[in-house]
């Protein structure tokens, strides 16, 4: 019995002592990086050993860190005074993101903490530099702690302009940007809104589309989408195609469509939509029919009577035509202008007509460009409000 205790006692002591956490960092010693804005800066490499590499992209990042005490004070007062900003924005440069984090940790009294990062913004130079962008993405993906649910966006005009955003209601510029992104997402102006969703597109299809923010006179605006292919900026999609793009990709949940009826511009509120693709002609040029079912409501009609089924029917027909035109323009933009399939035709063919896809996959860009895409839109007006 004594021998048993002699064995057990050191074991229990060792278990108690050895399970100590070596990674302990007190919460007040952490700097919560709320927004991470990343861009590249082309620099001349002066190191003669690297003479073969004349220029090397260098990562530049703006780290926005809220100051909890000041945030609480600002929230209670309603708005922060210009002299007492409830956050700090630090601009740092480094070889890569870990280098920037290291630079932060060695020059600041807090340890950078990325688990709760809420917003990730990419600059234009970064997205034009395939190598730098793929390195950044690899780091974000590889790091077990980086919050993969952080919102992601592209900023026009360089990441420095993020410092120009002046929120009127929100305490932090980051929350202001996130709110604007949220509202745009609610209106189905874009599909991808966090790192995880961006990674699904980049990993599986090699493509993704990011919301493009612009700071104009202190205000945040989203007027276009950045098209990314193989870790590089391919181009921009104008705001006028946004709704069609989300609808054709079967992701349109809410939105508004203005259409002309009897000389009046009427807003049609989209409440749901469903898309179905069918391959009609399996020989070149491939012919696809995209059927879209749009459901929604009419909330204003200048006090005219909306109780007659014939009126509703003719309105629906007007909407069908208007939607069809909008979708055809969007498809034409991707086929002829961008010449890249962002509307899911390749994905559909690969999944549902795999043999045909295998036949054309090596030359898909040309096949997509020449494909005939027709739209069959069926709009339903389900509600007309409380007036007749």
């Amino acid at each position, binding site marked *: 019995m004594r021998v048993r205790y002699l*064995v*057990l006692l050191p*074991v229990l002591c*060792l*278990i108690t002592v*050895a*399970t*100590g*956490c*070596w*990674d302990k960092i007190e919460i007040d010693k952490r700097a919560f990086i709320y927004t991470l804005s990343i861009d590249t800066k082309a620099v001349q490499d002066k190191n003669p050993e690297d003479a073969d590499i004349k220029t090397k992209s260098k990562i530049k990042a703006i780290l926005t860190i809220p100051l909890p005490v000041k945030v609480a004070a600002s929230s209670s007062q309603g708005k922060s005074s210009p002299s007492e900003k409830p956050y700090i924005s630090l601009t740092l440069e480094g070889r890569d993101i870990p280098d920037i984090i290291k630079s932060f940790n060695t020059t600041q009294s807090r340890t950078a903490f990325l688990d709760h990062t809420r917003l990730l913004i990419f600059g234009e130079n970064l997205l034009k530099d395939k190598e730098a962008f793929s390195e950044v993405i690899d780091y974000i*993906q590889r790091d*077990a702690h980086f919050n*993969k*649910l952080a919102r992601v966006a592209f900023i026009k005009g360089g990441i420095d302009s993020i410092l120009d955003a002046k929120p009127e209601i929100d305490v932090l510029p980051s929350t202001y940007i996130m709110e604007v992104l949220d509202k745009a997402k609610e209106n189905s102006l874009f599909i991808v809104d*966090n790192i*995880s969703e961006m*990674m*699904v597109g980049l*990993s*599986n299809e090699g493509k993704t589309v990011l919301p493009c923010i612009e700071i104009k006179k202190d205000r945040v605006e989203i007027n276009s989408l950045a098209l990314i292919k193989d870790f590089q900026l391919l181009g921009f999609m104008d705001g006028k195609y946004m709704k069609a793009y989300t609808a054709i990709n079967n992701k349109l949940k809410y939105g508004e469509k203005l259409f002309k009826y009897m000389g009046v511009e009427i807003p049609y509120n989209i409440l749901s939509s469903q898309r179905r693709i069918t391959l009609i002609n399996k020989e070149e040029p491939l012919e696809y029919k995209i059927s879209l079912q749009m459901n929604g409501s009419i909330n204003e009609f200048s006090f005219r009577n909306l109780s007659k089924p014939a009126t509703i029917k003719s309105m629906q027909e007007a909407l069908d035509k208007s939607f069809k035109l909008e979708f055809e323009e969007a498809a034409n933009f991707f086929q002829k202008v961008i010449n890249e399939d962002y509307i899911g035709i390749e994905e559909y063919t*690969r*999944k*549902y007509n*795999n043999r045909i896809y295998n036949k054309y996959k090596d030359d898909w860009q040309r096949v997509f460009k020449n494909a005939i895409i027709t739209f069959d839109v069926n709009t339903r007006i389900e509600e007309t409000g409380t007036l007749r």
Partner: protein
Amino acid sequence: MVPSDDKVSAFQVGLIVFSSVFGSGIFLLPPSAARELKNDAWLIAVIGGLIGVLSVFLISKGKKVYSKYGLVGTNKLLFGKVLGTIFLVPYLIYFTMGGFMIRIYGETIKIFLLPKTPVEMIIIPLILLGALLIRTGIETLARFFEAMLIPIILMIVILITVVIPGSDFSNLLPAFTNNFSDYLKGALSALLVYTGSEVLSILFPYMRSPEKAFKVTRNAILLITAIHITVVIENIARLGPKQTASFIYSTFYLVKVSEIPGAFIERFDGIVMAVWAISQFSAYVSVMGLGHIFLTDLLNQKEAKHMVWVSLPPLFIMSMLGKNLSEVFSILNTTIEFVMPFTALISPLMVLAAISIRKKAGKEL
């Protein structure tokens, strides 16, 4: 020698096999299956499940002999002392894999929770904690698994429900487009996840009702298969085959990026991580618990408890093999591909063949 009070019920037998096989399967299977069969990854779970059921079926067929002599005794009786012992070497290798299991546990904890803590400091307390549990006997081990069952089920329920929103099940298409050789390779990779059914051959002398062994262990394997199929499908549906394949533990990532709209808990990865730790520890103590019974029998020892402490230093050395997780997985995969077909299928078949020959020859068993 089996203590008369150290017996387990049929349900507990099922639970021990469940714990041995389950381990980290739901975290490791999706990426390895996606690498092999892409959209058809879920088929690997089916193939693995079938292999598991076949294994417990073959082992259960020899229940009378295993119950009487144990695994070591049966091999020595049927094949002679020398040949029988040689046939037990793959089992010995199999049980040393407990070291790799604890290493994977330590490395995973290091990646996700304790990046600065030396892996030895994570492994040593767990080895000691496991030893304390194992030395108390097989029944206590079974009771530990009973206690852990509810948290593990809770983890599975959370995991399956939180990841459903945002799934695109069309990612499973195109189906059945791989070559036959890919499916064969997939079956080999399934072995890694379905190792553990072999413990049944050691359990027989400890069973109160050996006749129920096949039924309960088959159910355990089928339950694991169903869970694996669901988790693999969800991984592919949410992340797509290419992204799933790019991870070591895609399911952790999947839970990390899942949120239920309107739920008051924003992130579920902490809960899943905590229960995963229990699940992996259960698999480790199960394999090690039965491994030390095997070692006791192999070395012809009467008392089993002191063997626990004897096995700790080699276990720790095994857990330190491999410089990083990639090397550990490489060693583990190679070992399993070599050992598992023998311990799970060939050895039980050989035992059945030898029993049949002895019966025909009129020799008693």
